Each structure stands twice: as structure tokens, then as C-alpha cells.
């Protein structure tokens, strides 16, 4: 059986193609058209696998752009897809922390990968990838460079939750001569604290698995581990767990 899972997120869109003997992964920036990027990912996956669309037995779309992608595909929310994807990669997982572009969410799952409860951040950007992206811009950096540039030994606490206020706060800190590495560590700590509170509302159980684009940032992982006083695991496919879950659910498994 060949199945495809697409996860059209606010910043990045991910695709996974599962065939009996191989897995294919693709990520592209979502841009302004979630529909077009979905098609693009699908055709790239088909090309990589060397097959035609007719060869795909089932497809499922998730992520905020799931509705706009009308490829006669079923849609399922990212909550169920992340749960399924993480359960496949790491059966011992009981708590999933997913931080994406505009959402952060915590999902409790049981030994069968069943969703027991979930919580998502409210409307604002605090504790999401967007927060880090805006702060990286203020610091004149790329968001991908943040983790390598942090210096937790001189962490400067960032007190503003609001992204706009936090930006002003950083400008003030830079003007006062605070070390850049310490400010970056403070930003990671801010995201970590925010999401850890969300997680504790649900009740944190080990093993904790961290996914989403922000899981690629080792600084946020470090901050989460400090806040939760627990190890946090990041699978190599951390950005693809939603799409992987979608591909697995498409297969009916």
C-alpha cells in the first residue's frame, strides 16, 4: 500500500510518502497559497518515489491549510496526526510537545497512541515559532542560527509574553549592552516556560517527545528540559510527525 500524508502548516508544509519498502520526506515553505504548496509537495513526492498519483492508495491532509487543499483527500486535525506519528516513531511517548509556526500544543497519549487530552496556546504568538522568528529578525539573525548563538551561562530573563512588547524589551536590553548570547538563551527560556505551563496543565508524563519546526532548535529543547526537570526527546523526523501520522492514518492504521 502506498499512502501520502500532507501537513500544511502556517510557515512550513511537510509531506510524507509511505511505500512498503521506502519513506520519502519533503518540506517546503508554505508561502501565501496553502493549496499550491500542497500540490507542489505531492508532485515532488511522486517524482522522488518515481510513481504516478494513481499509484497512491490513500492520502490524508492535516495542518491549518488542510481545508484549502481540495485534492479529494480526507482531513484530520494535526492533534490526531501528531499523536499517530509520534506513537509510530516512539511507542513509549506519553506527552507530545509540538511547537510550530503559529501554534504550540501539548498532547497526552496512552500506550496505544490514543489522544487522552490536549491543550493549545491561545490566540497570541507567545511560545510559538513566530515569536522566535520575530526576535531573530530584531537580533539581525536567521531563526536557524539562534540555538548555536545562545549562552545559557549569562541568561537574560525576557519578561514580556507579548511578541511586540518582547521585541521592545530586547531593543532595550541591546541598548543597555546585555550580551546577545544571554538574550537568546532568555528567549528560549521564555518559550520553554510558556509551553511548560501549558504542559503542566495537562499533567506531564514521560516519555516527553518534542516535535514541530521549533524542535530543531536545541536551545528551546534545553529550556524545556530545565523547566520540566525531565528529559525531552527529539526524533530525527521531528518536523514530519504530523505528515507521517497523516500518512499512517490514511492507510487506516
Amino acid at each position, binding site marked *: 500500500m502506498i499512502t501520502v500524508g500532507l501537513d500544511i502548516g502556517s510557515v512550513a508544509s511537510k509531506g510524507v510518502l509511505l511505500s512498503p519498502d521506502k519513506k520519502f520526506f519533503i518540506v517546503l515553505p508554505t508561502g501565501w497559497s496553502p493549496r499550491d504548496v500542497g500540490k507542489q509537495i505531492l508532485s515532488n513526492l511522486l517524482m522522488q518515489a518515481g510513481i504516478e498519483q494513481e499509484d497512491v492508495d490513500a492520502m490524508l491532509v492535516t495542518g*491549518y491549510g488542510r481545508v484549502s487543499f481540495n485534492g479529494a483527500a480526507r482531513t484530520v*486535525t*494535526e*492533534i490526531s496526526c501528531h499523536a499517530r506519528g509520534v506513537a509510530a516513531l516512539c511507542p513509549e511517548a506519553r506527552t507530545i510537545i509540538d511547537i510550530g509556526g503559529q501554534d504550540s500544543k501539548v498532547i497526552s497519549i496512552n500506550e496505544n497512541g490514543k489522544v487522552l487530552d490536549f491543550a493549545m496556546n491561545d*490566540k497570541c504568538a507567545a511560545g510559538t515559532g513566530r515569536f522566535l522568528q520575530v526576535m531573530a529578525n530584531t537580533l539581525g539573525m536567521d531563526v536557524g542560527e539562534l540555538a548555536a548563538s545562545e549562552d545559557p551561562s549569562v541568561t537574560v530573563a525576557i519578561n514580556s509574553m507579548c511578541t511586540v512588547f518582547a521585541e521592545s524589551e530586547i531593543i532595550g536590553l541591546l541598548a543597555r549592552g546585555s550580551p546577545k548570547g544571554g538574550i537568546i538563551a532568555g528567549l528560549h527560556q521564555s518559550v520553554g516556560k510558556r509551553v511548560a505551563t501549558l504542559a503542566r496543565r495537562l499533567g506531564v508524563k514521560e516519555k516527553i517527545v518534542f516535535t514541530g519546526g521549533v524542535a530543531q532548535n536545541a536551545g528551546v529543547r534545553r529550556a524545556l528540559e530545565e523547566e520540566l526537570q525531565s528529559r525531552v526527546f527529539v526524533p530525527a523526523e521531528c518536523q514530519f510527525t504530523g505528515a507521517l501520522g497523516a500518512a499512517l492514518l490514511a492507510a487506516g492504521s
Partner: protein
Amino acid sequence: MADINVDQFANIRSVALEKILDKKKEGLKVVGIYCTFCPQELVLAAGAIPVGLCGTREDPIPAAEEVLPRNLCPLIKSSYGFALTDTCPFFAFSDLIVGETTCDGKKKMFEIMQDLKPVHVMQLPHQKSPFSFDLWVKEIRRLRSRIEEVLEVTITDEDIWKAIDLVNREKELLKEICDLNQMSPPPIRGIDLLTVTWSSGFSHDKEEVIQMMEALKNKLESIKIEPEAAQKPRILLTGCPVGLGSEKVIRLVDELGATVVAMENCSGYKTLELRTDRNNDDPIVALAEKYVNIPCSCMSPNPYRMELLGRMIDDFKADAVIDLTWQACHTYNIESYEVKKLVKEKGLPFLHLESDYSSSDEESLKVRIEAMLEMTKQ
């Protein structure tokens, strides 16, 4: 689900408005009320029409924010905004406005509202001790005098008992209609149920609305229930008041393929078990007893709400519970912790939503509701 036409109920507001316009010159009196805690029986006993003024629409909120803080619940802002912008004819027609101290926000808003029109504020006790009950009885007596004074009428005990009978009958009927949704599939959609329960609060003629309810009940009872057609997850909605204009969560649940079978909120089931005791010697004490039992989150503690919710979950065979809190409604927001415990003990998915009257968060609400519905199907 059969297609039930509730247009007649949806039209109650406009019909009532016409009637009031017509008869205002002949001396018809209107009393605007903001909350289910107001003993509407006293208004009816005075021969006046009680109308609900509680704001359920977003339109006047920007105007209200010129006076009130932004970080206040949308219900209070909407209620004040309608008064301030003079866009609610029922407010304009009211000879007397009655408010209650259900929360700090409303209490302070009513002070400012006095600049627009006299507001009679009832001091509502937030617990059921004997001392606070005495206060509540006195407050209801004070309301009686105020209505008599402003409307220039005498309210006899006999008039109050008649009104009590009428309201008891209306609540009984409404409860019977709501209870029909214990069947599977439910005979009436959540949004239609809201239209019936919410709109009847605007009626100019209780007898007429009771007849309409009886007809609706008969119609619903005549629907042939086909249990095998029941496929949609059954949602119990609880939390802050919802009316037409602020029904987005009910609509989204429907769009996502589930159905709201019951609502434990002010416009829904919250007050429907409560009757005024006909055997009491004093109608005012009888009213006080009924109203002090309303399980609003402003009551502390509030065990009856949990008891009621527990029974409703079982009786309506709920598959999941959504607790809707309007932003900055601290008491419902905090009490959500207890609701969650109760629902989790029942082993059901629970979703606490915090929102306002705008449509800005509909996409994120959808994801949450949809994910909860997926949990019911796992």
C-alpha cells in the same frame, strides 16, 4: 434529524417590538432585565413586559470600548454598547432597567449605565447562608416597591402567584422540549434549540409563547426517531451565556458534523429544573428560594452546577463536553477546573474554550473542536 421550523420563535423579537411600539402610547410598560436572576414574575405581576437586554452581538462593542476597558467580557461590553449607541429598541422602550451584581464587571458597568437611564441594581448574594438569604428576600421586596413606584401600580400577592404559575408552566414546558433531545438522534438541532429558549425571553405575551411551545413539543414528539440514524457525536455545551449573535461554537460544532444536544447555560437548561414553590406562604420568599438556587458560577461554592452537569451528561448521553468561557469571565473561567474534573471522571473528552463575540478565532476554535470530536471516535 428532521427539519424543524423554528421561524415562529425566531420572529418573537420583531413581533414583540411591533406590539410594544403599538401599545406604548396606551400605557404599556416594559422592564428591561439583564440576567436570569431577575425575578421576572414581579414584572409580569405588575402587568408589564419583561425583556432580556443581555448583549449577545459584537456590533456595539467598539463603541462600548470607548468607555469600558477592552479586557472585559464581551457580554458586558455588548450590553453596555447597545445602551450607549441607542441601537437596542428594547432598551429604549424600557421604563425600568434591572441589573444584578452577578460579577464585578457588571456591577461597575451598571454604575456607569446610570448616566444613560436609571438602573435598579439588585444586590445578589453569592452564597446560600441564612444571612445572605435574608438579604436576597429584602432585595426582592425592594424590587417590588421600585417597580410599583416607577410603573405606578400596586402588585398584589395574588398577582405574583398568578405570574409564578405562568413562569412555572413556561419553564416546565421548556424543560420538556429540551429533554426530548435525550433521544438518539436528537429531534432538534442545537441552534434551533437556542432559538427557542433564547427568543422566548423577548415575548410580549407569555400565554402565547406557552402555546407555541406546546405546539412545538407536540411536533417534536410526533417525529419518528430512527436510532440507526444516530451517527453524530452528541455534545453538551456548558459555561457562559450564549444567545443568537454569539452562537458561533454551536454553529461550528454543527458544521464539523456533531450536534449540541443540550446547553447547561443561562439561555439553556441551567434554570429549567427550578420552580417557585406554590406552598410557601409568602410569594417573595418563594421567589427568593427559587432564584438563589440558580447555579451560576458567581455562587460560591456552586455544587448544584456540578450535580446538574453530571446528571445532564448521563441523561443526554453526551459523548463530549465543551465548556465555553467568554474572555475575562473569571468565575466561569476558574470553575472550568471543576467541570474538567467532573467530565474526566465520566471518562469523556473535555474542551475548554475561551473566546469572545468576534469571528477572528473561528479557525483555531475549529481545530480544537474537530480534534475533540476525533477523540470521541478513537
